[in-house]
């Protein structure tokens, strides 16, 4: 219990420092916000193009597809602000030997290594997510409280699996220091999350649910918000994130053991 409290305190302190750093560069922040909003607007455009031609695509109407996009922007923000910077930090730490120092701290090493930094200036997609989500909800009936709660839970569960995926990348970096390209690969793979999962068929659909679990984060919560959830949906999400949690924790321990015996 004491260790858990210490871990939380340590993480909070690290995050405070990150935010303070970002606030040092206010003009950069404004510029970043402007570019992010413009880029995100261009990301929505193809959807409008498609729905300019069709009422429905793979069973999804425009407002619901927009909800998927909103969750996609949230995913984007989490990934850019939390997951990616920490992979970079971890690689640095392995290279410079600072990892040894981190492992000496009396807090959970996995959390300390994988969540030590928040790049607050990359959180702008959250603004886009709120804008797009607001517009989408304005176009349909408002979801009921149960739907909202489920959507939040599903999104959380999806984020956990995505975190585990990036943690696996950190584990890989213990062996291969050059993981820049792995970063790009994760980014481009998660890009598929911007469309409703039903447009994908066969193995791709399965991959996007269980291997690169973007559907869990974008389509599943959107499904809940439109009231179209069922037990299978909830069960899949829970099962996939549980598997990711266990698997990544195992991989982390294995890598630490390998790291400890490899370095001198």
């Amino acid at each position: 219990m004491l260790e858990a409290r210490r871990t939380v305190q340590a993480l909070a302190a690290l995050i405070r420092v990150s935010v303070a750093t970002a606030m040092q560069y206010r003009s950069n922040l404004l510029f970043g916000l402007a570019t992010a909003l413009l880029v995100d607007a261009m990301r929505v455009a193809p959807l409008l193009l498609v729905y300019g031609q069709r009422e429905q695509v793979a069973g999804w109407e425009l407002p619901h597809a927009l909800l998927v996009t909103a969750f996609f922007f949230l995913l984007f923000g989490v990934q850019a602000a939390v997951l990616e910077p920490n992979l970079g930090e971890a690689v640095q730490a392995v290279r410079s030997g600072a990892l040894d120092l981190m492992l000496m701290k009396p807090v959970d090493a996995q959390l300390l290594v994988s969540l030590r930094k928040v790049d607050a200036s990359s959180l702008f997609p959250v603004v886009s997510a709120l804008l797009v989500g607001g517009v989408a909800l304005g176009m349909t009936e408002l979801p009921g409280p149960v739907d909202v709660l489920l959507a939040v839970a599903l999104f959380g569960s999806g984020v956990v699996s995505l975190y585990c995926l990036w943690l696996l990348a950190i584990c890989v970096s213990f062996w291969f220091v050059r993981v820049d390209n792995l970063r790009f690969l994760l980014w481009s793979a998660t890009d598929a999350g911007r469309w409703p999962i039903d447009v994908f068929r066969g193995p791709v659909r399965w991959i996007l649910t269980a291997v690169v679990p973007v559907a869990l984060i974008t389509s599943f919560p959107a499904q809940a918000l439109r009231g179209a959830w069922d037990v299978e949906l909830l069960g899949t999400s829970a099962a996939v994130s549980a598997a990711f949690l266990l698997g990544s924790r195992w991989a982390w321990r294995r890598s630490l053991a390998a790291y400890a015996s490899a370095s001198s």
Partner: protein
Amino acid sequence: MHLLRALPDIFRVSFAGVVAYRAEMVIWILTSTMPLIMLALWNAVVDEAPLMGFGPTEITRYFAATLLVRQLTSSWLLWELNEEIRTGSLSMKLLRPMHPLWVHAADMLAAMPTRMVVLLPMLLALVAWRPELLALPDAWALAVFLPSVFLAWLLGFLVQAAFACLAFWLEQTQGLFALWFGAWMLLSGYLAPLEMFPEAAQPLLGVLPFRGMLAAPVELLTGRATPQTALVDLGVQLGWTVVGFAVVRALWNRGLARYGAYGA
């Protein structure tokens, strides 16, 4: 002439570099599979009924061609040059009696054969699986395709060179480039065939530089171009190439003067 004499050796060394980074190269190529994600969406759209002459076959052919042309025309000059300017390693390159941009250009071209080695089997497998995808374009279209795809590559290279030169003054060139890249994805035919855009937008799309960077060669390859559109596209590409050269030249010279004034 010195450049021509130097080319074979620059190629040879760059190629050795490509071989040294072959794992990264494969990941890079996998990273640019975005067209396949778009394909899934558009496939779902045209599944019920063809749209603007695009059925499932045509849309698959379109995005397969997009994938190919994208691989043939992509550059990573921006990241390389940014890094050189930031770390000062540009200084060492400036002490050689050849323009660093030429060396980079040769470097990028040298990676081309390897990219093809990875990509062609993928395309061949696709064609073997769905033979109806293969529709060889007319001889004239194939002949025009070569200069068209070269100009598309050159335009992309010049754009990145221009944005990279901004690193002589700014630290946020990547944010600016993201803005450009967003516009490019939307307006070049990367996310959707340009035919899907409203009629009113077509003349504008025709004169902007984006079309010449992707859609023009893709349409030649998929047999959707006519001799008239091909000629106009080539003209527009040439025009923007001239503009690009002028801009890069001006930015480079000024940037170098600044580099020389403030520390190298």
